[in-house]
Structure formats: C-alpha cells, structure tokens
C-alpha cells in the first residue's frame, strides 16, 4: 500500500512538474539554426532551370510553380505558375499551399532574393515539399528561352545541352518564336516562248 502511494505521488509530481516546464520559445519554429544550415547546404533543395524544363516537358503533374513576385510585377510567368506575393504568404488563402504533401512547390522570383526569403521562412516551420529555382526567372529566360551557342571548342556534352535547351525553347515558346530565316525567293527562270514553226509542209 505504501509503495503504491509513493508511486502515485511520484507520478503526480512528475506530471505537475512537466506541465509547469516552460514551453518552447518559438512555437512556430520546427528547425533550429543548425538544422536550417544543414538544409541550406543540401543540394536537393534546389532545382536548376534545366531540371525544371525537363520536369515541365515530361508533364509531371506534381509540380506546382509558385511565383513570389509582388502582384504588380507579376507578368510573363512560367507556364501554369500561380502568384503568391511575398507579402501575403501568411494569409489564409495561400498559407496552406506551402504546408502540404501532395504537390512539389518550386518557388521562384525574378532573381533569387525573394524566393530565397520565402523558402527560408517556410523551411524553418518544418514544411516539406518546397524547392527553390536556382537563378529565378532571369536565369530561365537566359538559359532556356535564349540559349547561347557554345564555342567551337566546347565538348560534346555542352553541344548536347545546347540542343536540349533549343528543344525546350521550342516547347515553351511554340513555333512563333523560331528564328527568322532569311529567305529571298528565287526569281523564276523565264521560259523561252515557243516560236511558231514557220515554213515546212502544210
């Protein structure tokens, strides 16, 4: 009887002390600074423009592009991107999109700055499935939509990559943006007029 009482008292005391312990300083933060640094160094958190082009062309339905530019600057976005301006990422309409397990969010802005800020804020709250597009829209426009011909001395891999980018470019821009070919129609050769046969037997 005595030991049982003792046990009860200990368990009660344990419960009370546990309940009185101070809570975490920042309840919204799931990762501490060292875990965040590990995430920053992890290459799998970043998507290059070539990888993204491949994913979009293969029609991966799990990719959700999120453009974090302010609504006033939202123009010429990537295909099927949605605009979540950086100042409204915590509003009710948008916040749930960052914390889900179905889609893979690829965040981008004009360059890296805004998207990196949003990515850091989402990552530290423990939200998964958020990735960062390296170089943003500027890199996309420069590399995929306007690829540079490698120099003659470049390796075969570089030429292969160039071919791939040209194909991607055609996929994303359609035939309209194909380079203009200088074409001057050749003047038709003037055929000689047949002369009427003159003379001879009739």
């Amino acid at each position, binding site marked *: 009887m*005595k030991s049982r009482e*003792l046990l009860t*008292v*200990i368990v009660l*005391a*344990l419960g009370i*002390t*546990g309940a009185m*312990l*101070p809570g*975490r*300083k*920042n*309840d*919204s*933060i799931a990762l*501490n*600074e*060292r875990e*965040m*640094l590990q995430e*920053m*160094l992890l290459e799998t958190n*970043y998507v290059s423009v070539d990888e993204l082009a491949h994913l979009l062309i293969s029609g991966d339905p799990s990719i959700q592009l999120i453009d974090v530019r302010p609504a006033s600057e939202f123009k010429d976005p990537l295909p099927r991107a949605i605009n979540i301006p*950086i*100042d409204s*990422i*915590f509003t009710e309409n948008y916040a749930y999109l960052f914390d889900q397990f179905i889609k893979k969010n690829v965040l981008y802005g004009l*360059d*890296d*700055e805004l998207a*990196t*800020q949003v990515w*850091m*804020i989402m990552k*530290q*709250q423990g939200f998964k499935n958020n990735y*960062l597009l*390296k170089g943003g829209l500027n890199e996309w426009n420069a590399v995929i939509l306007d690829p540079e011909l490698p120099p003659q001395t470049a390796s075969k891999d570089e030429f292969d990559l160039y071919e791939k980018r040209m194909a991607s470019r055609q996929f994303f821009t359609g035939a309209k943006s194909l380079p203009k070919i200088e074409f001057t129609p050749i003047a038709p050769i003037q055929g000689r007029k047949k002369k009427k046969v003159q003379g001879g037997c009739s």
Partner: protein
Amino acid sequence: MKSSIRPLGIITLSLFGFLLIVSFYADKSQFELTAKEMHGKVLQSNYRLDSVGLSKLVDPILIDIRDERSFLVDHLDYSVNVPLSQLLNDENLKLIGESRPKVIISDERIHANESWMLLTQMGYDSLFVYRL
C-alpha cells in the same frame, strides 16, 4: 509517515531538476524571431549592396562564405573566409557578433541571402549582402 516524506521530496526535487536540465538542452533554438516576425522584417529590409554601397560602409567586416578553394583563387582585399558550412562555429559567430557592419560576400545569391536570413533571425544586426 514522517520518514517516508523526506525521500519522496528528494525524489521529486531531483526529478524536477532533471527535467529542467533536459528541457534546457533539448531543442535549444537560438532564433530570436519567429517565422512571422522574420517575414515582417524581410519586407522592410533592403540589405543588398552594390559596389558603391560597399565602398561607403565605414570599417566593415567582409565575410566571404564561398568554399576555401574559390576564396584562394580570388577574393576581395581584407575579406575573411568563413565557408558556409562553418558559419555557426563559435569563433565565427563571435566575429559576426561585433558591432561593425558585416558584409556577407558570395558569388551565389541564394547562399548569401540564406545566410543573411539565418543570422538576422538569430538576432545579429547590421548585416549586408554583396554579390561578387
């Protein structure tokens, strides 16, 4: 009865102490700002420097966060190399904790911005970012 209260008290007190120690060391985040506070902060901050802004800073500490090899090949005069993976080492944090303006330098805008976010959230101020 009286004799059984004393060990009970000792046990409870020691348990309390143990829990305090455990809670102190477990999940000790040094973040000063919550995610939402940080969000408010980035909306107001403009921390990106161009070369003119960099030259205007008085007695700045230039922190190059690229890896050692890239730093060896080429770097700004008077800059110190703190590779990103070692950013949170005690001696580096001591450097960042100084009151002089600190400029994070990198050729990768993503890592420079990330470092700014991380350190700002930990409560360090007068931080800037300069891209090589």
